[in-house]
């Protein structure tokens, strides 16, 4: 009886068995990387804005406090994006002729909001509240990174659930004194602690932090 298959099939059959395993591994590994990549999470992607507002300039160089613009961050779930009037507090006096600021003046004159492009987008099925995080001693920099070094803002962290849980499961790794929330350069040593570990343990106790990891804490 003649052979049904060419002798090459001996090799093909072995390769196909190994190939399936390799392919499955590569697919799994590829998906693992893809869902955590900047392409999916947006980490490190600088977004264009209608006006090239520089946090680096306003915060780092001029020393304006975060709360000057983000007024409701201590009392509300929403930190708030400032109205044009806040810009005009200064810019009605300085750089009044700047070409770059023309859209700000235009917005002020016509009483229409500037449409900024959102950078940090938390999924809609998640409840997030800025004020409780501030009150329990989580600094701006812990989530937003060195905003004071960014010209245009980009996302520093993935905002994936595993990232939220990383802190919620061990807040001592990130907590800081309440009076250092807005300090971008804070180190545990500045407050007289040896390191974050020592400070974290002390502050978790002091602030009575019992961070929630139950589903309904965020998925309400």
């Amino acid at each position, binding site marked *: *009886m003649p052979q*049904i*298959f060419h002798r090459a099939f*001996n090799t093909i*059959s072995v390769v196909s068995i190994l190939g399936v395993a390799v392919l499955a591994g590569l697919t*799994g590994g590829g998906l*693992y990387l893809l*869902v*955590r990549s900047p392409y999916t999470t947006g980490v490190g992607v600088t977004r264009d804005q209608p006006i090239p507002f520089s946090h680096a300039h306003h915060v780092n160089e001029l020393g304006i406090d975060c709360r000057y613009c983000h007024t409701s961050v201590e009392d509300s779930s929403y930190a708030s994006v400032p109205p044009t009037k806040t810009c005009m507090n200064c810019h009605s006096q300085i750089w009044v002729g700047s070409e770059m600021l023309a859209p700000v003046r235009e917005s002020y004159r016509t009483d229409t909001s500037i449409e900024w492009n959102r950078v940090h987008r938390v999924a809609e099925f998640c409840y997030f509240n800025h004020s409780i995080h501030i009150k329990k001693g989580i600094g701006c920099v812990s989530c937003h990174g060195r905003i004071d070094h960014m010209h245009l803002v980009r996302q520093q962290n*993935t905002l*994936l*659930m*595993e*990232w*939220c*849980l*990383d802190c919620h499961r061990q807040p001592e790794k990130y907590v800081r004194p309440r009076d250092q929330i807005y300090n971008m350069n804070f180190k545990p040593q500045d407050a007289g602690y040896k390191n974050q570990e020592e400070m974290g343990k002390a502050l978790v106790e002091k602030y009575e932090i019992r961070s929630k990891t139950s589903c309904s804490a965020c998925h309400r």
Partner: protein
Amino acid sequence: MATVSPLREAKEGEIIAPGHTFGSVTDKISDIVQNDTIAIGWLASLAFAFMMLNILAISAAYLLYRGLGIWGINVPVSWGFAIVNFVWWIGIGHAGTLISAILLLLRQRWRTSINRFAEAMTLFAVACAGMFPLLHMGRPYFAYWLMPYPNTFGLWPQWRSPLVWDVFAVSTYATVSLLFWFVGLVPDLATLRDRATNKWTQTIFGLLAMGWRGSAIHWQRYEVAYGLLAALATPLVVSVHTVVSFDFAAGIVPGWHTTIFPPYFVAGAIYSGFAMVLTLAIPVRQVYNIKDFITTTHLDYMARIMLTTGLIVAYGYGIEAFMAWYSANKFEVAVMQNRFTGVIRWEYYMLILCNVLVPQLLWFKYVRTTPSVLFVISLIVNLGMWLERYVIVIGSLTRDNLPSSWGRYSGTIWDWGIYLGTIGLFLTLLLIFLRVLPMISIFEMKTLLPEAHPHGHGHDTKNHGHQESVK
């Protein structure tokens, strides 16, 4: 159809009719598959089954479009037909595994005629069962969340939940059953490859046979692999339905929270499984004229297993009632009162009739060896086992601890559509299987022949398992 015919019909105790030879066994079984004519009866059956399968397609599509609201489930009955049907189908599968694994290890040689067929039934039943948890999720495209993989939520599945154990129990069961079935098929696929007359079937069977040449080393490896898989599958006969019963028993709903559930579920599974094997085997042996392979002795043996497991199930029902009384737990008493005289009573009476009373006929040899009567009883048991799950799921959920959380339940047309649809899926797969693969293990059947046990070496023929058979 082959022209081979045995000398006479098989007598009592014979598991293959005398007169067959190695050649006639091969011819008879493979001719069912390698036959150029398509029987009109088969085609009509397939058309009917396919029509029922389309009911599943329509019901499932509409379910995905509209959501779970089209089913009868709501608070308090959030487990309706889907769970009833899931348990029913999974239970049916168990007979196949028992026949192929446990009866193999126990050297019950009569299993040879029915194991291939029963394993296929297991696979198709598991496929049907698997539909229900998926569809019940509402968002089936997130089914992979049940698997422990490094997800972006930073979460693992809830290991304390029996529902997660269920995922592993059922997926392991499906995998092992598929492997067991396929490994057992390989020598027969090679036979079909060698007998194939056209290029296409030769290539397809050739690919599936994976280069089987029937050399001694092939047989040696085959025996090792098959034995190992049998050993793997054996605990699954017990574990899978035990875990399914945990879905209920680990909950604190009255009527579910009992320790009798695991053994009683396993017995029920084997009971319903053998009923389904009989429901299918009786018409199939008639239509394909293979009564010389699936003899009345086989029917008798299967009926005996059904009677035994049926008695265990009946004992379970008895213990449920006894424990309700003996524990003096008023919620357990209420569950039993609900079954005896409450809203679920008609279903419960029917269940007792189908599962306990009618099967007592199996004590009579006449009933066990008369295919038509046995067929009717097997259908009744199938119905009874479905009702059992219905009483457990619906009965307990509609009458919870608090009267304020009492409710009513009835399946909608879409519940029925999906249930009937899975029967269509099952029958479609089965009919295709009957036509394209050997429904009886050819090479194992040969081990039942006298030629497979040559005398003259001082061996006792009775001690020849198929392990030592002529290759």
